[in-house]
């Protein structure tokens, strides 16, 4: 396959500067519109499917946990917005998001994995009254500040994160919420 040669002689100095920027994180892999669509997709993705990489035993456990009291949990969205989400599923979600974040070439854009990570922590705080992270309040506030600034965040997730922010704010210094 022969490809046309690209002539960079007309490239502006600013564009050349971007072409010399070797940091993968800079240069915006995803545009806001795309991130919104991916988040929507991820929140509607079946939890069971994404946890299947943990093995058959874990998958069975996830299936059992998904049939808790209240509305059935089919997707990550169902889980995060459930009135009584199983804490174990939230922990698995947090771990899954963490695994995705650790891999720059992972299956989820870093921004989405990060939101999923903090949303699971916040859901555990606000709906179960439990902390599933060792993050101190200040670090969590800082992370939630970042997440809430993202224009591509959907309103339901935004509200969940705001609730988490309020819970951390009223909990006082480093007390369990």
């Amino acid at each position, binding site marked *: 396959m022969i490809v046309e040669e690209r002539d960079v002689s007309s490239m502006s100095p600013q564009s050349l500067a971007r072409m010399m920027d070797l940091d993968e994180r800079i*240069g915006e892999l995803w545009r806001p519109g795309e991130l919104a669509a991916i988040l929507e997709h991820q929140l509607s993705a079946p939890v069971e499917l994404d946890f299947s990489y943990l093995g058959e035993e874990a998958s069975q456990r996830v299936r059992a946990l998904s049939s808790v009291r209240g509305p059935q949990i089919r997707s990550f969205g169902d889980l995060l917005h459930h009135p009584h989400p199983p804490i174990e599923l939230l922990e698995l979600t947090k771990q899954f998001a963490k695994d995705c974040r650790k891999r720059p070439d992972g299956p989820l854009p870093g921004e989405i994995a990060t939101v999923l990570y903090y949303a699971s922590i916040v859901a555990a705080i606000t709906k179960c009254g439990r902390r599933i992270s060792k993050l101190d309040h200040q670090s969590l506030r800082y992370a939630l500040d970042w997440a809430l600034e993202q224009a591509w965040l959907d309103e339901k997730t935004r509200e969940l994160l705001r609730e988490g922010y309020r819970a951390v704010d009223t909990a006082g210094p480093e007390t369990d919420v």
Partner: protein
Amino acid sequence: MDRPKTNVGKQLAMMSADRYSGERRFPTTRWSLVARAGQNDTEARREALEQILVRYLPALRAHLTCGKGLAPDRADDLLQEFVARKILDKDLIAGAEQDLGKFRTFLLTALNRFMINQFRDERAKKRAPCDGVVLGVSDPTWLAQTEASPSVAFDVAWARSIVTEAVRRMRAECQESNRMDLWGVFECRVLGPALEGSDPVDYEQLARRFGFQSPTQASNVLVTAKRMYARTLRLVVGEYARSSGEIESEIGELREILASSR
């Protein structure tokens, strides 16, 4: 956006299989082109010199025309003499081995000194007044400034040569390794927008065009392509930089100059 419901967990586990093995090819030798241009093996020396000249003469020319205001014809004459008398006859590149500074600065300094000497010689021969007539330069302060001032035009043209070469090599490598998906994604998301100021092509479209399982896979391919480009860019700069530290500082310095130039 109609996104395929892929198994992200499984994809996470399988990700390693699709990774391009570019990291292993990171260059282990530095300063290679400059070293070859300074050695005794006539054929290797000639080839290396030719590469250096083809790649970086446009930057030297830009320095003379845009930075110093010489007429294009006069700049070409001066460059021709510089190449013949300093680079070929006096073996200038071999001297770069002993110079502790950067090769880019070394070459520019050598050209500036050559230019000053030419200016003085011609002025003396023709008994011309000190008004820059001989070299076509109207600003009398030009001579004093020449030694000290690196020109932005030179740095921009130098960076352009590096990016051109990196892009050319990356495309060739993608073709040779039959990974035109890497090139295609890089072109649609990075190179095209940088050249044309257009929006990057949507990942959905890229997934359809190149047969990826999902838009996320397309973005992973972009990460791989960017790594490949970064490695190639370092390789090109590494041909005239002495160490990995110098490669990084050279790229960083050029990037800053480019970003702040208009």
